[in-house]
């Protein structure tokens, strides 16, 4: 069975490159959402095996979206990987403390993104 991943990011270029990487290299099924609010709805409908969630988004940011996902029983157990371009240690600690499965960094290598995700989630 193919893994199903939901990408939530307000930047279209990042969504498209990540989707290309996960679909073409790993053969996973990918859905995309361009905001936290849209991502919450897509997560309920699509029931992905994992969510790749951007941190800095206008409106509902990544950490807020993550907390909302956790509050809803329909999405509470879906593993979430944060995706961020923030490189300061204080930010990284703050994100890790949220309880996400992993924090991945932008820029990512499209050739190895799926391997990184699979490694974190034990999908090897």
């Amino acid at each position: 069975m193919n893994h199903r991943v939901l990408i939530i990011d307000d930047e279209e270029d990042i969504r498209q490159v990540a989707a290309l990487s996960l679909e073409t290299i790993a053969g996973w099924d990918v859905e995309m959402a361009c905001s936290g609010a849209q991502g919450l709805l897509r997560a309920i409908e699509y029931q992905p095996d994992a969510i790749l969630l951007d941190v800095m988004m206008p409106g509902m940011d990544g950490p807020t979206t993550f907390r909302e996902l956790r509050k809803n029983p329909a999405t509470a157990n879906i593993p979430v990987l944060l995706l961020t371009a923030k490189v300061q240690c204080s930010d990284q600690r703050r994100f890790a403390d949220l309880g996400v499965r992993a924090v991945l960094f932008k820029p990512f290598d499209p050739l190895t993104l799926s391997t990184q995700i699979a490694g974190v989630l034990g999908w090897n």
Partner: protein
Amino acid sequence: MDPIEQNAITEALHRMWDKFHPEMMARVEVLESADAALASGSLTMAQRHEANAAAHKLAGSLGTFGLTKGTILAREAEMLYSNEPETDPTAAARLAQISALLRSIVENRK
């Protein structure tokens, strides 16, 4: 990953770069406008936030398209714009230099 698959990804990334190139240039232009305002002493808070966001997005995107140096420069611009560059006498010159380098990197990616 076999070479054929890798080539397919590389080709797809080239096509995506062509699609998103105008957006990357627009982000560089936001930085250039903010640099000019900073140099003339008229940088507003809104412009500073816009420049900070544009630099952040460039930092996240450029390396994904293989432009690692662009990510490093954009991160430096993001840091300078997040630390009140009006109070740093060297910031305006450095930010202008960074924007010129970013423009060259974005314009010249093959």
